[in-house]
C-alpha cells in the first residue's frame, strides 16, 4: 500500500527579515499528516508566529518551500485578514464567496459560534481585539478546513468562550489536522502528538510530546 502523502510538507524553510542580520530560523523541515497534531513551542520572539504566518500564506519564506496538500485556515488568533471598513456581515459575505460557501449558512454558523449579535453590522475596525478574534475563529470553523493554524488559542475571548473554541476545534473536528503555537503546556500535552521547538534560530521535531514539553519548560525557565 502506498504511503499517504502528507498534508503539509515544509522543506528547508528559512526566514530572515531585511532589518535583521540573523535569520529568525533556518532549515526548518517537517511533515504534517492529514490528521496530525503538531505543537509549535518556543520562547517569545523565537519565530512561532512568523512560521504560522508563513504557513498561512501571509508572508513568504526567505528560502525553502511550503507545500500544502490540504486546505488550511488562516492563523486563528490572527485577525489581520479583515477589511476594517466593511461590517462583520460584509466580511462574512466576502469570505463566503472567496471560499465558495453558502453565505446564509456560513453567517448562521458564524453568528451561532461567535455570539457577536448586532455587532456584526458594525465596521470591523470598531471591533475590540477579542471581537475580531471571535469573528475570525467563528469564520474559520464555519468554512471548514482540513487543517487549522492556531496562534495562541488563549487569546480568544473569555474562559467560557475558550472552552467553546476548544470543543469546536479539538472535539468536533477531531479528524482535522492542526498546528498550534501555544505557551499552555497542558493544552499542548492534551491535544498534540508531536512538537516543533524553535530556539535560537534552530528548529527540532520531537515525536514524544511529553519530552518536548519538558525541554520547552526548561528553555522557558532558563
Amino acid at each position, binding site marked *: 500500500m502506498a504511503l499517504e502523502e502528507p498534508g503539509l510538507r515544509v522543506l528547508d524553510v528559512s526566514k530572515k527579515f531585511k532589518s535583521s542580520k540573523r535569520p529568525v530560523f533556518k532549515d526548518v523541515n517537517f511533515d504534517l499528516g492529514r490528521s496530525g497534531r503538531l505543537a509549535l513551542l518556543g520562547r517569545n520572539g523565537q519565530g512561532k508566529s512568523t512560521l504560522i504566518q508563513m504557513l498561512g500564506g501571509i508572508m513568504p519564506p526567505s528560502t525553502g518551500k511550503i507545500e500544502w496538500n490540504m486546505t488550511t485556515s488562516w492563523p486563528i488568533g490572527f485577525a489581520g485578514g479583515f477589511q476594517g471598513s466593511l461590517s462583520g456581515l460584509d466580511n462574512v459575505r466576502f469570505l463566503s464567496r472567496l471560499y465558495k460557501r453558502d453565505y446564509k449558512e456560513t453567517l448562521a454558523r458564524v453568528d451561532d459560534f461567535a455570539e457577536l449579535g448586532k455587532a456584526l453590522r458594525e465596521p470591523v475596525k470598531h471591533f475590540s481585539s477579542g471581537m475580531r478574534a471571535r469573528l475570525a475563529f467563528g469564520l474559520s470553523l464555519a468554512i471548514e478546513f482540513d487543517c487549522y493554524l492556531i496562534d495562541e488559542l488563549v487569546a480568544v475571548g473569555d474562559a467560557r468562550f475558550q472552552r467553546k473554541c476548544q470543543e469546536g476545534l479539538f472535539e468536533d473536528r477531531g479528524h482535522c489536522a492542526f498546528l498550534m503555537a501555544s505557551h499552555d503546556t497542558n493544552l499542548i500535552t492534551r491535544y498534540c502528538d508531536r512538537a516543533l*521547538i524553535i530556539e535560537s534560530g534552530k528548529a527540532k521535531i520531537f515525536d514524544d510530546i511529553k519530552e518536548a514539553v519538558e*525541554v520547552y519548560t526548561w528553555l522557558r525557565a532558563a
Partner: protein
Amino acid sequence: MPNTKQHLWLIIPPCADRDDWVASITAQATDAGFTVINSAADANTAALGKTLTLSPDPEEARKTGVQAKDVAVLLSTSGPLSAKLDADNDPAPRHTAVKNASDFIRRGYAFFPDRVFKAEDFAGTSVKLFPGFSLLGPPSTSTSNRNRALKEALSIYAADHAFWGSEVFDINAKDVRHNKEEVALDLTGRPRFLIFGPYIVMPAGRWKAVARIGFSAPTARHQYRADWGAQDTYTSHHFRPEREGVFQVEIEYEWDKPSASEFRLLLLEGAFDGEVTFFGVEIVRVG
C-alpha cells in the same frame, strides 16, 4: 616415579572464547592422562587418579580446600562477554554478565594471587601450569571493541588502577557517535542518565574515579550530576560547566565490601541542543 594422584583446578572465568579454551584444555589434559571434569559438582565423584576440574568460579575451588599450587586461574584476552550478550540490545543481561565475570576474576586475584595466568602469556608457546602439565592456548579470535575495553577495565584487580573506556558504558541519547576513544552524544531530550555502567565488581577499599567530559557551548549551561560508587549508595557531585571545553570530574567512594560499581552522568534539565563528549574514566585505588 610418575605422579599418579593429582587433583588440579583450572579456573576460566566467563569470556568470549571460553569454549575454545575448554576444548583446547580438554584435549591437552586428556593427552596428559588427566580426567577432565567440566562441572565442579562432579568433582567429588571423580575416580582416583589425575583429575583436572574446570570451573568459572574460584570460590568453588577454594571451598574444597585445595592448595593454591594446584589451582590456575586463566584470564582470556577476549573480554568477558559472549557474542550473544555483546550483541543483545537489552543491557540488563550484559550488566549481569559483567558483574559475574568481574567478580570471578576478582576472586581469582584474591584467593590465588600468584596463580593467575593471562592468555597473553600463551602467545604461541606452551606455559607450564602444574608439574607435568603445560598448556598451549587456542588460536586467538577477534573480539568486539566493547569486549576489548572491558578486558582493559578488568585489569583493575592486577594493578589497582585501570582505564575504563567509553565503550564499557551505556549511553542514553538518540544520536551517539563513537570515535576512537571517546563517544559524542546529542544532548537533546529530557533530563536523564546520559552515561552509566559498567557494573564491574570493585574490591573493598577507597577508589577514585576521574572522568573526562567535553561540553559544547549549548550543553555547558546545563546542570549535571556525576555519581560514583555502588549501585545503591554512591558519592555525587553536582556541577554546571558554564563554558565549553573538556572538564575533569574526580569523585571518591569507599567500598566496605566487594560490590558492583557504577559511574553515572545525569543531565538534570531538559536540553534542546548540543553535544557532550565522554572520554572515559580513570579508576585509581586511593586507600
